[in-house]
C-alpha cells in the first residue's frame, strides 16, 4: 500500500508541478507521465514489472504506428500543392543539415569513444539523427495563435515540422531495413531495398484496402473503431515483418487524409488519441528507462548540442541559401527546437528492434531532449514569432508567380 501511495503522490506532485509550470512559465510537458513511469517501473516501485511491461508492448507498438498515421495525415495534397516551393526547399535544407550534422557527429563519437565499428555505429548514429530531426508542431501552433492560420510564417513552421517528420520517418525506415534481423523462413534473405519496398507495400496496400473498407462511413464511433483497426493491423503487419511501424502508419495516414470524406472527423480523432498515446508512451518510456548509466552523459550532451546547432544553423543556412532571410529572419530555427511524440516513438521503436546498438543511449538522448526542449520551446517559438512582421511576405525573387498558388 505504501508503494501505491508513493506512486500516487509522486504522480500528483509531478502533475501539480507541470500544471504550475504550464501556467506560469509557458511550459507544456508530459514530464509527469515520465515520472509516473519511473515510479511504476522496475527501477521504481516495481508495480509495473518486466512482465507487465512485456504485456504492454502491444500498446506502445500501437502508439508508434498511430504516431506515424498522425504524421501522414498532415500531408493533404490540395494544401501541399498550393504551398510555395521555397517553403519546401527551406524545410528540407534545415532538416537534412540537422540530420547530417547530428548523424555525422554521433557516428564520429560512437566510433572514437563508443567502441563500435564504423558499420555498427551507423545504426545508432542514424537513429539519433532521426530523433534530432523530429520537431513538434508547438512552434506552428503558437505562431498560429499570434498571427492567424493564413500567415506565411505559420505555414512555414507547419511545413518544416511536417518535412522534419517525413525525413525522420524515412531515415528510421531505411536504416532499420539496412540492419534487419535475419528471417530464415524463405530461401533468400530480402535485401534492404526489398525490406523498404515491403514496408511501403504494407502501408499502401493497407491504406488502399482500408479506404475501400471504410466506404462512405460517417458515424464517428464506427469510424473510430475502423480507423483503430486499420492502424492496429498495419502496425502489426510492420511489426511482424520486423520493420518500423512509422512508415506504414505514415502511408496509411497519407492515404486516409487524401481519400476519406470525413477528413476533419478522422483528423480530430487521430489528434485526440495521439495525445493519450503519447502519454502512454511516456509512461512506458519512464518504466523502461535506465538513466543511471554515466557513460551516456557525454554523448547525450553532445547530441543536445549538435541538435541545437543543426536546427538553428540549418534553418539559418536554409534561409540564406533560399533568399528568404528577409521574410523569416535568421532565428526561425529556434521555433523548431521543441520535440514531441515522434522523437519518443522513434527511440521506443529502436529500443524494440532486435538489432539495436546502444539502445539505452539513444533512448536517454531522446528523453532528455524531449524533456529539456519542453521546458523552453514554447517560449522560444513565441519570441521568434514576436520578432516577425505581422504580414510575412516572400521576396519577389522567390515568390510564386500568379496562378501557381501560395
Amino acid at each position: 500500500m505504501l508503494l501505491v501511495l508513493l506512486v500516487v503522490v509522486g504522480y500528483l506532485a509531478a502533475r501539480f508541478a507541470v500544471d504550475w509550470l504550464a501556467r506560469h512559465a509557458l511550459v507544456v510537458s508530459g514530464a509527469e507521465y515520465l515520472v509516473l513511469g519511473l515510479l511504476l517501473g522496475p527501477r521504481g516501485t516495481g508495480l509495473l514489472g518486466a512482465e507487465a511491461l512485456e504485456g504492454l508492448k502491444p500498446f506502445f507498438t500501437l502508439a508508434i504506428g498511430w504516431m506515424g498515421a498522425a504524421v501522414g495525415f498532415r500531408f493533404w495534397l490540395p494544401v501541399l500543392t498550393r504551398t510555395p516551393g521555397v517553403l519546401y526547399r527551406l524545410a528540407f535544407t534545415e532538416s537534412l543539415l540537422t540530420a547530417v550534422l547530428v548523424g555525422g557527429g554521433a557516428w564520429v563519437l560512437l566510433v572514437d569513444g563508443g567502441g563500435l565499428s564504423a558499420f555498427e555505429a551507423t545504426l545508432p548514429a542514424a537513429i539519433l539523427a532521426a530523433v534530432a530531426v523530429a520537431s513538434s508542431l508547438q512552434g506552428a501552433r503558437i505562431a498560429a495563435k499570434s498571427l492567424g492560420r493564413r500567415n506565411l510564417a505559420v505555414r512555414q513552421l507547419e511545413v518544416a515540422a511536417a518535412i522534419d517528420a517525413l525525413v525522420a520517418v524515412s531515415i528510421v525506415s531505411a536504416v532499420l531495413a539496412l540492419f534487419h534481423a535475419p528471417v530464415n523462413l524463405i530461401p533468400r534473405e530480402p535485401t534492404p531495398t526489398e525490406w523498404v519496398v515491403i514496408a511501403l507495400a504494407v502501408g499502401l496496400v493497407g491504406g488502399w484496402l482500408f479506404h475501400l473498407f471504410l466506404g462512405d462511413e460517417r458515424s464517428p464511433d464506427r469510424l473510430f473503431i475502423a480507423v483503430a483497426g486499420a492502424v492496429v493491423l498495419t502496425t502489426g503487419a510492420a511489426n511482424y515483418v520486423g520493420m518500423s511501424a512509422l512508415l506504414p502508419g505514415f502511408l496509411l495516414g497519407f492515404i486516409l487524409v487524401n481519400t476519406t470524406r470525413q477528413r476533419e472527423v478522422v483528423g480530430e480523432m487521430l489528434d485526440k488519441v495521439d495525445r493519450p498515446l503519447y502519454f502512454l508512451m511516456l509512461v512506458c518510456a519512464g518504466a523502461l528507462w535506465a538513466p543511471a548509466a554515466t557513460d551516456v552523459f557525454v554523448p547525450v550532451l553532445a547530441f543536445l548540442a549538435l541538435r541545437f546547432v543543426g536546427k538553428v544553423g540549418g534553418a539559418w543556412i536554409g534561409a540564406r541559401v533560399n533568399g528568404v532571410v528577409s521574410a523569416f529572419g535568421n532565428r526561425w530555427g529556434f521555433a523548431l527546437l521543441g520535440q514531441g511524440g515522434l522523437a519518443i516513438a522513434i527511440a521506443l521503436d529502436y529500443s524494440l528492434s532486435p538489432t539495436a546498438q546502444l539502445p539505452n543511449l539513444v533512448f536517454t538522448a531522446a528523453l532528455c531532449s524531449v524533456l529539456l526542449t519542453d521546458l523552453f520551446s514554447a517560449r522560444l517559438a513565441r519570441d521568434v514569432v514576436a520578432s516577425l512582421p505581422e504580414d510575412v511576405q516572400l521576396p519577389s525573387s522567390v515568390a510564386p508567380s500568379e496562378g501557381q498558388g501560395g
Partner: protein
Amino acid sequence: MRRIIVLALLFGAMRLIEPLGRAGGAPDALLTFGFLILVAYAAGELSERFRQPKLVGYLVAGVLAGPTVLASVTAEAAAQLEPVSDLAIALIAFLAGAELDLEEVKRRGLTLLRLTVVELGIATLALFGAAMAMRQWIPFLADADMQRAILFAGLFALIAVMHSPAIVMAILTETRASGPAARATLAVVLLSEVVVVLAFSLLLGVVQQLLPGAAEPSGGVALIIWEIAGSVPIGIALGVGVALALRVVHEDRVIFALLAALLGQQVAHLLHVEVLITLLVAGFVAVNVARGDDGPELRHAMERSATPVFVVFFALAGVAIDVPAAWQLAPVVVPLVLIRIVALAIGVRLGSGGLELGAVQRRALWQGLVAQAGVAIGLVAIVAEAYPEAGASMRALALAIIAVNGTVGPILFRRGLEAADEKDKGGREAAPSTAASDGPTGRGCGTPPW
C-alpha cells in the same frame, strides 16, 4: 458485401507476409488483433442490420477468427492478447462500478440484495438438481461416488449460475437504455459477483476438507476468501485515491481512467485480491466520493470511450470459445441452459417484490441475467488447480454453457429492454452520425468514442 471482400483480401495479404516473420515466432498479436477488430466491426454492423446486439456480432467474429474455426487468430496470438483483454475487463468493471448511484444503493440496496440471493439460490438449486439428474452424461460426475458428485455438482452449479456485468454494461451502453429494469439488472449482476464468489469460496473450503485434492489451491481457502473480502477495502482505497486525484486532473480523463484501471489491476494482482470486484468498488467509490461534477464527468468520459473497449473484449471472448468442444457437449448444455433460464425467470418473479417492477420490466430483468462471460472461467481454474482431472472437464462444460449464454443472453436482454420501453432513454439523443451532448444519466455511443 464490399467489406467482406476487403476482409478476404486482407486475410490473403496476411497469409502473403507470413513467411517474412521472424523464424520460430508466433504470428504477431497486433497483426491478428487488427484483423480481429475489423472483422468484429463488420460483424457488429451486420448484426445490427438484423436488429441484434452488436456484441453478438463481435462474439461471432471472435469465434470465426479464433483457433478452432478459421485460426486467423492462433492460440499463441490469443495468449499474447490476454493483457489487452484483462485491461478491457478492468475498464469495464471500473465503468460498471461508476454507473452505480450511492443514493439508489442506500434506498434499494437491501431489496436488491434479497432479489440477488433469491434468484441465485433458485438458479443454483435448479442447476445442481439438473447436474445430478444428468450425472451419467457429465464426465466429472459420471464415475464419482455420491458425496463427491454432490460436492462437485454444487461447485459446478455456482460457477454456471454466474452473470456477466460486462455484457450487461455493453448492452446498456449500446441501447442507451435507462429505467428501473436497466438499473436493477446492473445492480443485481454486480451484487451477484460478490455473493457467488463468496459462496464458491466457502463451498470449496468444505470440499477441500472432505475431499483432499491433488493440490491445495495456491494459498488455501483463506486466500480465496481474502481475494474477495480484501477487494472491498482495496477498492475503496483506490476509489478514494482516484476521487482525490480528480481534483487536479481536469484533462485527459480517459487516459486517467485507463491508468487508474491499469494501476488497480496491478495492485489487485500484487495483493492477491479479485481484480473485478476491486475495480467495481473503486469505480463506485470514485464517482460517488468525488467533489462536484468530477465523478459524473469521469463517468461520461469513460462512457464515450467504451465502444472500442467492448469490441476488443467481446471479440477476444469469442476467440476463447472452443466450438468443437461446445458442440460435443450440446446434449448436456442445451437442457442446462434452458433450466437456468427458467430458474432465473422464477427467481426474479419471486425475489423482485419491493422493487415496483411491472411484468415486462421483470422479464427484462431476468433476460439481463441470462448472459455469461469469462469470470466463471477463473473459478473453474481454481477447481482445476485442486482437482486437475475433474477441473478440466468442468472447464469444458462451463465454457460451452458460457458460449451459449453469452450469445443468447444479449439478444434476450436487448429485446427485454425494447419491450420494457427503456431503450434509448439514457438521456441523450440517438445520434448515429454526429456527436451528441451527454445527458446526466446518459450512457451510449452517440458521441465519438474518444
